[in-house]
């Protein structure tokens, strides 16, 4: 049992045309150890793991040295021979990870040596499923959390020594997320497995891993023990990631956002990959390669100037820790929008049971709840995308009979006052329309044709984009830029209330902070009110003045954000707050 289970050296992945996606990654994994590989999209973290598993998509080629014990995994066919038996991997999305045409039991049986009902029940119990009937269910009959547990049981069926988990909790609800991560860590310990946790969430990695590797644009920038990195990050990117993560325990005036986007790995060869976005970058950073070849036991950073800028980084972190902002109670006067007794059923299922809600001018109301609680349905009823069964919606005290059927004139006013920003900006922008055409569509519908682009340029400026974007199409934009366009489009009609339905949850942390800051600025400048629908309590803490907590179609608690989150009255709210990733452990480490 000596030596590491898995050792990776100089692992690189290139496309068929020679473009680098990942360069010179090195790390090792020992029995019973959990390491976290942290990075935003485009960092190469998933590609690296797929290369190790021999599951790279066609057209990508891996080079380097990957050893599983004595076996060279990059030799053709080697990975396939050991997959499942010694090394296995589970994926992010529990909704697409299981064969939809097979029962959970059948999926589990595929990896078992002696598949029998007893063995299957025992394996399900290991991942916390005590109901053996689950074995007979199809994936579509199971919740996301259960699917992820079945996936874990299936991955463990052949008793592998190494489990790689790619964002195992990202697609789940907050409370389920915590359960799955705990389950993974516990199972890893109990079985003495080596566990690799891939995540974009630094806090999550800190809470579950022994060591952490930070990847950026296909390169390793910082590596070391969790405690050391959490206590003192030595690469500006790691610090940036930590600071852009919205703190859940208090509000800050402005979130730290890393400007720009993650560049393609190929474009930053031969220099520090982070130089373009780094506040401390100097000529030396742009002239010489600065990535970590391999990870040793010690805490290491690829930053060329780490010793010079160390104190400044520490100081920035301390300043951030002190910076706090108070939520303002704007819930005074007459409400802008009032919802009374909103009820909605889909088929036999009651989704909303008499919702009463007010949004006051200029305030941000956070609407939180887990999936299936009905929070999106409220938002959709409010703009007439769904039709409520009963209830009343008023704008400025005047009833909007029903946004789905109300009179045309009343509706035009309502639509002008209330606009919507969706979670996935790519799905809401016509891929064939340029941004110019997208804006023109709305301006023309509003009777304000904009021939000389002044209005469109002004819209772009408001969301921090240059007029050059008018001629681009959605596919040419990054996720953050698309969401800026979606916000600009919503602003075109001069709304007073913007409904943001999970508007930042699909974005990378650093980009998320940019968008949240943008929304805050817009609220200040235009007196805009928000209905902020989200499952992310940390985002609510930063954005909302008041919070409404939704559980199974009922609002169970409403109040100022600090009161609800610091002293929740309802048990359900308490569960939500305590399930925030890594909350307890982070606090004990005195983190940002």
């Amino acid at each position, binding site marked *: 049992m000596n030596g590491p289970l898995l050792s990776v050296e100089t692992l690189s992945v290139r496309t068929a045309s020679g473009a680098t996606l990942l360069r010179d990654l090195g790390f090792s994994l020992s029995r019973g150890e959990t390491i976290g590989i942290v990075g935003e999209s485009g960092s190469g973290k998933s590609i690296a793991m797929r290369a190790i*598993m021999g*599951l790279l998509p066609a057209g990508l080629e891996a080079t380097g040295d990957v050893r599983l014990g004595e076996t060279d995994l990059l030799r053709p066919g080697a990975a*396939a021979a*050991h*997959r*499942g*038996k010694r090394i*296995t*991997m*589970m*994926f992010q*999305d529990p909704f*697409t*990870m*299981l*064969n*939809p*045409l*097979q029962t959970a039991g059948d999926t589990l049986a*595929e*990896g078992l040596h002696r598949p029998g009902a007893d063995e299957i029940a025992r394996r399900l119990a290991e991942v916390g499923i005590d109901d053996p009937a689950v074995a007979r269910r*199809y994936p*579509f009959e199971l919740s996301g959390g259960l699917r992820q547990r079945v*996936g874990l049981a*299936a*991955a463990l*069926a*052949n008793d592998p020594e190494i489990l790689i988990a790619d964002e195992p909790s990202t697609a789940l609800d907050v409370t389920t997320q915590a359960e799955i991560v705990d389950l993974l860590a516990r199972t890893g310990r109990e079985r003495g497995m080596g566990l690799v946790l891939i995540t974009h969430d630094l806090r999550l990695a800190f809470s579950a891993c022994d060591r952490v590797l930070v990847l950026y644009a296909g390169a390793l920038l910082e590596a070391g023990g969790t405690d050391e990195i959490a206590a003192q990050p030595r690469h500006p990117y790691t610090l940036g990631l930590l600071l852009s993560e919205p703190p859940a325990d208090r509000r800050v005036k402005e979130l730290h956002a890393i400007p720009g986007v993650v560049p393609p790995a190929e474009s930053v060869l031969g220099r520090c990959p982070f130089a373009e976005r780094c506040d401390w970058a100097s000529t030396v950073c742009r002239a010489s390669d600065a990535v970590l070849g391999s990870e040793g036991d010690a805490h290491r950073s690829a930053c060329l100037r780490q010793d010079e800028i160390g104190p400044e980084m520490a100081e920035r972190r301390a300043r951030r820790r002190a910076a706090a902002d108070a939520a303002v109670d704007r819930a005074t006067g007459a409400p802008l929008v009032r919802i009374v007794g909103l009820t909605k059923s889909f088929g036999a299922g009651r989704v909303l049971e008499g919702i009463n809600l007010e949004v006051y001018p200029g305030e941000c109301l956070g609407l939180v709840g887990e999936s299936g609680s009905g929070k999106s349905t409220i938002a959709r009823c409010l703009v007439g995308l769904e039709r409520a069964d009963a209830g009343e919606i008023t704008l400025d005290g005047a009833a909007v009979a029903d946004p789905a059927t109300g009179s045309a004139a009343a509706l035009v006013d309502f639509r002008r006052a209330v606009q919507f920003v969706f979670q996935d900006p790519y799905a809401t922008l016509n891929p064939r329309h340029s941004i110019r055409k997208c804006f023109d569509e709305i301006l023309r519908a509003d009777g304000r044709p904009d021939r000389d682009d002044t209005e469109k340029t002004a819209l772009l400026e408001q969301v921090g984009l240059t007029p050059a974007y008018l001629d681009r199409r959605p596919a040419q934009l990054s996720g953050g830029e698309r969401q800026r366009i979606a916000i600009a489009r919503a602003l075109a009609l001069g709304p007073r209330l913007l409904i943001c339905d999970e508007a930042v949850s699909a974005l990378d942390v650093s980009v998320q902070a940019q968008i949240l800051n943008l929304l805050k600025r817009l609220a200040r400048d235009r007196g805009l009110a928000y209905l902020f629908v989200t499952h992310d309590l940390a985002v609510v803490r930063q954005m909302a003045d008041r919070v409404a907590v939704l559980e199974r179609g009922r609002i169970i608690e409403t109040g100022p954000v600090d009161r609800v989150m610091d002293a929740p009255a309802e048990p359900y709210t308490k569960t939500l707050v305590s399930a925030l990733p890594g909350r307890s452990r982070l606090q004990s480490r005195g983190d940002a």
Partner: protein
Amino acid sequence: MNRALIRYVALRLFTAIPLLLVISVFVFVLVHLAPGDAASALTGGRAISQEAMDALRAKYHLDEPMVVQYLRWLGDALTGDFGTSVQTRQPVVTAVLDRAPLSLWLTFYAAMIVLCAGVPLGLAAALRQGSRLDRSVVTLSVFGVSTPAFVSGLFLLYYLGFVAGLFPVFGAGRDGGFWTRAWHLTLPALALALSVLAIVVKITRAAVIEEMEKDYVAFARARGVPERRIMLSYLLRNAMVPVVTAASVIVVATMAGAIYVEITFALPGLGSLLVDAVRQRDIPVIQGATLFFSVFVILVNVATDILYVLIDPRIQFGKAAR
């Protein structure tokens, strides 16, 4: 599940009734609007006296308004009497049922060839995407679909039947057993199959390629599930859903294509019956044969929907009806 199945089938068949009525009205009107006169067809083109003609019209109720004629036909049809053929004096039911087995044989034989050849070819092409095998399968199937069944039929007749002498060039093998029949109908079924094979090959290929990208396939590989099982239980079974969707269209298209093929191969099936009836304006036969086709199409669709449920547990009876 079984009760749900029976209820579902009963419901589907029940809702087919108004559809059949509409089809019968449509066919009736179309035939009457077409140029030519049924009564002169009765005389076989011979010139007869006006009185004799009137008597003939009265006998076949051709002098009454169209609506009355239709209702009269409908009334009889409900009692199982679809009239008699103007040409052969044979009851329509007998004429259709006499000819139907051959056409059904041909259709299902061709459909079997299409599925048994098309699905594996599509799968093989998808698994070796971009290879020479892939390209030749796609090219050949496109060649097949762009050649009408009667043209490929003639080719097959000449080379496999006449030159190579592998299969009979004439006759339906009616009096022989199953294998005689199959032997006789192989060339026509092949001709028929070639014309729709490409659709199945392309759909299967596209569906399997799409499945290969799915997370659950990657996860199965990561768990070390054997490639053979991944191919059958993951790729093929999931890819079958779109193929089954197309299967109903394919069976119906094959049935329609059978009309040409029966004539090319001089087979006494429904197709040739229908063509003769149209040529001679034999309205009762046209009506009867068309209704038979419609019932067939409806049954195929019901069967497809049942197949769906068996393949995909997410689809439930009642939901598939919508």
